[in-house]
């Protein structure tokens, strides 16, 4: 019998008459060890404040949008009810079912606004990706020195930390009839006299949105490209792969999660956009965001809520489609 075994035997025997020696068991209970406190501060204390904050300022507002969309308007506010009339107003204009009316089978203005917002968002998102990818590729693959990489990356990202309203305003002197772009084009002789379609048009709106949000796409793509194992590229090169093959077979697939995250960022931001249109489009177009604010301003809260809910739904569909195309779980 070894020392340890004899010790265990003795302890066991002496532990048996429990309750006689002050009631405390001497052997360490296995189950007790399992529930021993992990080192560090207790989790509930660490997460409680942030969780409470998110419930009050994120979940309750979103849930109230859903609830309020069924309430009825009272002219200066709303009162609890269950009505679907706001949803009907959202989808169906008067004369929708009447073959004699010009509105026959024409989608309502709200659906058309949501559709325009969606279509426009997709366009801007595509342009952002096309512009962001080469930039992220340059920073992660072509710049070898880490310090330079960081500096150039930060330089491209700094505008994200400045006011986006002001960045939108800054387009005014560029795009106007006497703006820099017109002056430049007249100067090099492309056009004879200044054209006016640069400002307060779909062109200016697209330009401004791309400039405002393109940095959001650069970040995630850069990080996913920077994470690619360089030895993979070496190996492919050693086996005689051309640069294009390396890109198509290795770099592109491995950077897809970053592309997807960038797409989601840009997508949700532009779907909820409402201020830029006023600045550079002169308020000539409406996005679902502006519709929501307009109905809030005239105290039709339930209808604003319906528009908001439909916007949320459209965004969720978009995000789900992106997630279906690309599996980003590896990235998280």
């Amino acid at each position, binding site marked *: 019998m070894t020392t340890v075994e004899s010790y265990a035997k003795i302890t066991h025997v002496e532990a048996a008459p429990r309750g006689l020696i002050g009631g405390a068991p001497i052997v360490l209970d296995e189950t007790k060890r399992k529930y021993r406190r992990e080192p*560090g*501060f207790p989790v509930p204390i*660490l*997460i409680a*404040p*942030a969780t409470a*904050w*998110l419930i009050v*300022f*994120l979940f*309750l*507002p*979103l*849930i*109230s*949008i859903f609830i*309020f969309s069924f309430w009825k308007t009272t002219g200066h506010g*709303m009162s609890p009810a269950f009505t679907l009339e706001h949803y009907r107003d959202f989808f169906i204009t008067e004369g929708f079912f009447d073959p004699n009316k010009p509105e026959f089978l024409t989608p309502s203005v709200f659906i058309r606004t949501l559709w325009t917002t969606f279509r426009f968002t997709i366009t801007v998102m595509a342009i952002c990706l096309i*512009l962001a990818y*080469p*930039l992220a*590729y*340059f*920073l992660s693959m*072509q710049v070898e020195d880490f310090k330079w990489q960081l500096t150039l990356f930060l330089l*491209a990202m700094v*505008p994200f*930390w*400045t*006011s*986006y*309203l*002001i*960045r939108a*305003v*800054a*387009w*005014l*002197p560029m795009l*106007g009839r006497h*703006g*820099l772009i017109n002056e430049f084009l007249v100067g090099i002789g492309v056009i004879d006299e200044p054209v006016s379609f640069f400002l307060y048009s779909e062109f200016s709106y697209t330009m401004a949105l791309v*400039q405002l949000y*393109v*940095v959001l796409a650069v970040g995630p793509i850069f990080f996913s490209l920077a994470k690619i194992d360089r030895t993979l590229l070496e190996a492919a090169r050693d086996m005689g792969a051309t640069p294009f093959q390396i890109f198509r077979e290795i770099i592109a697939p491995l950077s897809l999660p970053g592309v997807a995250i960038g797409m*989601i960022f840009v997508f*949700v931001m532009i779907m*909820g*956009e409402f201020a830029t249109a*006023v600045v550079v489009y002169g308020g000539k177009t409406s996005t679902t*965001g502006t519709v929501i*604010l307009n109905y*809030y301003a005239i105290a039709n*809260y339930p209808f*604003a*809520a319906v528009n*908001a809910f439909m*916007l*949320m739904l459209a*965004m969720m569909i978009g995000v789900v489609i992106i997630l279906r195309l690309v599996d980003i779980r590896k990235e998280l």
Partner: protein
Amino acid sequence: MARSTPEHRRKFRVKAGFSVYYAIFLIFVYGPMFAMFTLSFQGPRGGVTFPMRGLSFFWWEKLTGPSAVGDLKASLGRSLILAIVVMIITALFSTMLAMAFRKRFRGSGALFYAVMSGLMVPGVLLSLGLASMLRQLGMSPAWWYSALGVHVVWTLPFGFLVMMAVFNRFDARLEEAARDMGADEWTVFKEVTLPLITPGIVAAGLFGFTLSYDEFARTTLLAGANNTLPLDINASLTQRVQPTLFALGTASTIFSLLMIGVFIVIYTILYRRSR
């Protein structure tokens, strides 16, 4: 180049092409801002576009003068206080959350997605939801609580991701050693953990400060009677645009850049010290 093989020349050309692209990108992103900076020094008779009609501080003086759009000094003050409070809460919450996520706990997945959804929900939805909710409760929104609330929802995911990255590279053996020598949890945190993660906390704070200072969409319906600076800028957009707005934009952008610079300097100093 020492060895001028065709392969080297090709690589060099590719690199040069990408560099030119990077430069064009910077011009695209910064160009309009520089045009705005220049035009803020427009002469008194000049307009909001080129050419410059003289060079003056006329519009800058107008900005600081009493006839300015609204009460800019007061709204700047409110924006700053709000940004500082958001910075502190963001730094605190993201540190606490990231410390919790070092362990496994029930509901961690749900909490992770809850924090991240702050990135995904557009400001206009949060504004509308919270504003109409408060209205129904008979409360009126004010910048110091309702705007503060949604600002933190927006900045928290950024700070959280920064702190998660910090703890990913964190050597937990240092804490173990302190614990083995008999230190209690507070001492371990104060003497070992905190000094090592301070640079990360500063970076999380940077996101809190700058994103809140410039936030417009989330403040729209939630500032109540008193405007923050972005709201005043938006209000002045509905009037006839004057170079005063450019002066204001320039001042605000320079301030943002200064703050980023200050944060980066503090970060670098703390980072060197924590090594």
